[in-house]
């Protein structure tokens, strides 16, 4: 049994067998017991070793002819040594003979401890040889598995995914009915894996460092998304403990579900609007189950990332996704954000293009202006869908008024074309903007005159305002939503919206973080859009406080000049009101 600590990014507890993915999508085989004789399985392993030796030797020959750098063929000589290592072969054969493991699983299991040893060495060069061990493993598995490789789209059993990091295309393709949790080496709270896990309402722990080294496919794994723990090959006692925790967690969920149908009203009678954030139309159900009054943010990027390489969806595909969501929503609103690709997610034709500073580059709306056909297709589909429910258009990454006006021109042109074609759509479809660039926040008063609503994207707003990439461990501690600059920007935006009489929503991660709920209510936020799983707890906090009280908290917070002191104050106040909201604490 091994307990690993990471960052909890999606709550819940799950006990399942692991499905390990490496960076090249080769699945490390699941534990598999052979029913034939061990001798045959050992023979299979030996044949695979011979085939792999030939593969490596062939590559070495080829490289020797092409490259003059003598260190390159040396690496392949090392690969051959790893492949035929006495200890490794002996261990693998022993696992087959004594435990009836399959050759694939034995190879993976026998190499695990060796990998760990190498990664613990002092010499950096030698440590990096772990990559060579993985490479040999991969080649050997390819030969063993042949055509029998399973892929993520066609899982037979429920599993948890263990990977270095999940790419958008991997998560877009996975079988959502079979995947019950994620554990990854890399990533942070706003990483792609985290967002997807919360969307799918499955537990996830990221930033585990080297979990892929510790887990072989098929091992039992507990993912504790509440505490940020991953337990590999748990013992009986631990399994029992977690089974009861799993049960407790479900009970808690049941309790929270009870407040689902109660209105989101503060103690002093202020009505608050709660919406859900989604990535797939199917998640509307989860949002409604959580008590959402509609969808405040439908991220449409996944339509683009379903295939690898990414392919732009057709108008029909857009239209079908939107009407699917609208069907589930009835007359509740659906805020559709236009394509927000770029930076960490690759646009469809990014191949070849390289940006030195992608977060300040051609992303989102900027990218759309450079590829008008993408935006036109999406806008047409949104407009056509608008007769099937309450649709609103949300424009991301707006930094100047001219961009907003230009986007509105696109919308006007799409409308004119549909009119000419005699296609029905909602002529008065509301158009709002994301406030996520500091320039838009500072000039929110001007934007309010030309927008039907605002939605504050705190993840980007904080990153751009504080100049901090939260995914970068060297500076991540500087990322703090409680920074005075953020608080005063937020206050300013709420006020601008209020003066112009337009709704201001918040759909960033801060809106779902209970530590900030009282502060945000006090600063003037009345529309929250959060991941569906956060809805019941958020409502619980809202129903336990008064605006009066929140205003006092916000005032006290605004007076502090140390973000950490602010966060402590906010946590203390929240805990006073809803101590049970913190169920992460032991």
């Amino acid at each position, binding site marked *: 049994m091994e307990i690993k600590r990471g960052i909890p990014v999606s709550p819940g507890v799950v006990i399942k067998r692991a499905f390990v993915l490496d960076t090249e999508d080769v699945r490390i085989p699941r534990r598999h017991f052979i029913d034939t004789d061990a001798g045959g399985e050992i023979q299979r392993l030996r044949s695979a070793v011979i085939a792999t030796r030939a593969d490596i030797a062939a590559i070495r020959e080829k490289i020797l002819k092409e490259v003059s750098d003598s*260190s390159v063929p*040396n*690496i392949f*000589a*090392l690969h*051959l*040594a*790893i492949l035929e*290592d*006495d*200890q*490794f072969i002996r261990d693998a054969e022993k696992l087959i003979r004594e435990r009836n493991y399959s050759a694939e699983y034995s190879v993976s299991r026998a190499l695990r401890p*060796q990998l760990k*040893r*190498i990664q613990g*060495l*002092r*010499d950096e*060069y*030698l440590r990096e*040889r772990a990559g060579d061990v993985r490479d040999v493993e991969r080649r050997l598995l390819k030969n063993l598995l042949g055509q029998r490789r399973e892929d993520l789209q066609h899982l037979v059993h429920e599993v948890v995914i263990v990977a270095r990091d999940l790419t958008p295309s991997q998560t877009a393709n996975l079988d959502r009915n079979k995947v019950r949790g994620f554990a990854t080496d890399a990533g942070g709270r706003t990483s792609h894996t985290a967002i997807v896990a919360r969307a799918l309402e499955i537990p996830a722990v990221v930033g585990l460092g080297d979990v892929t080294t510790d887990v072989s496919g098929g091992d039992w794994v507990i993912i504790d998304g509440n505490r940020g723990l991953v337990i590999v090959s748990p013992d009986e006692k631990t399994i029992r403990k977690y089974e009861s925790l799993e049960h407790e967690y479900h009970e808690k969920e049941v309790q929270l579900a009870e407040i689902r149908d109660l209105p989101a009203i503060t103690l002093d009678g202020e009505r608050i609007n709660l919406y859900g954030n989604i990535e797939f139309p199917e998640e509307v159900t989860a949002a409604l189950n959580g008590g959402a009054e509609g969808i405040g943010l439908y991220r449409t990027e996944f339509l683009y990332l379903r295939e690898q390489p990414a392919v732009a969806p057709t108008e029909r595909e857009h239209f079908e996704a939107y009407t699917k969501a609208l069907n589930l929503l009835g007359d509740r609103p659906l805020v559709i954000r236009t394509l927000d690709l770029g930076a960490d997610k690759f646009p469809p034709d990014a191949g070849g293009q390289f940006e030195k500073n992608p977060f300040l580059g051609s992303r989102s709306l900027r990218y759309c202006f450079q590829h008008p056909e993408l935006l036109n297709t999406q806008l047409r589909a949104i407009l056509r869908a608008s007769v099937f429910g309450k649709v609103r258009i949300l424009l991301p990454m707006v930094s100047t008024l001219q961009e907003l006006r230009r986007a509105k021109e696109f919308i006007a042109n799409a409308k004119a074309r549909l009119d000419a074609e005699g296609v029905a759509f909602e002529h008065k479809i509301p158009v709002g903007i994301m406030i996520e660039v500091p320039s838009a926040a500072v000039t929110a008063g001007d934007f309010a005159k030309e927008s039907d609503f605002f939605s504050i994207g705190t993840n980007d707003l904080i990153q751009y305002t504080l100049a901090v990439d939260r995914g970068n461990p060297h500076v991540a501690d500087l990322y703090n939503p409680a920074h005075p600059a953020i608080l005063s920007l937020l206050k300013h935006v709420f006020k601008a919206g209020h003066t112009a009489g337009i709704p201001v929503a918040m759909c960033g991660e801060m809106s779902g973080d209970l530590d900030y709920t009282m502060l945000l209510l006090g600063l003037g936020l009345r529309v929250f859009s959060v991941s569906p799983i956060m809805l019941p707890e958020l409502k619980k906090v809202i129903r336990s406080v008064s605006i009066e009280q929140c205003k006092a908290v916000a005032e006290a917070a605004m007076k502090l000049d140390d973000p950490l002191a602010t966060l402590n104050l906010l946590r203390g106040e929240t805990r006073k009101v809803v101590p049970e909201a913190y169920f992460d604490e032991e």
Partner: protein
Amino acid sequence: MWVEAKAIVPNTEGLHARPARDLWETARRFSSEVRIVHGRVDADAKSIFDIMTLDAAQGTELIIRTCGADAEAAAEAVAKLIASGFKHS
């Protein structure tokens, strides 16, 4: 009976890919058990993983211990290989 020999790693890169592989290959030519000791690490010279785990940089003194029918020859060959800085003969 164990036969013992000593050798200091003279080459700058220590036991990197090629030296490790040469050492492994040399040890495997003998039927004797071949062990290399560096501080508390006692490595099986017929395991490439064990050799890498020696973490032997330039200047490291290694103790070679062999046991078996060709123990003398094995100890001598391995010690010579290390002392030569893994020059190809």
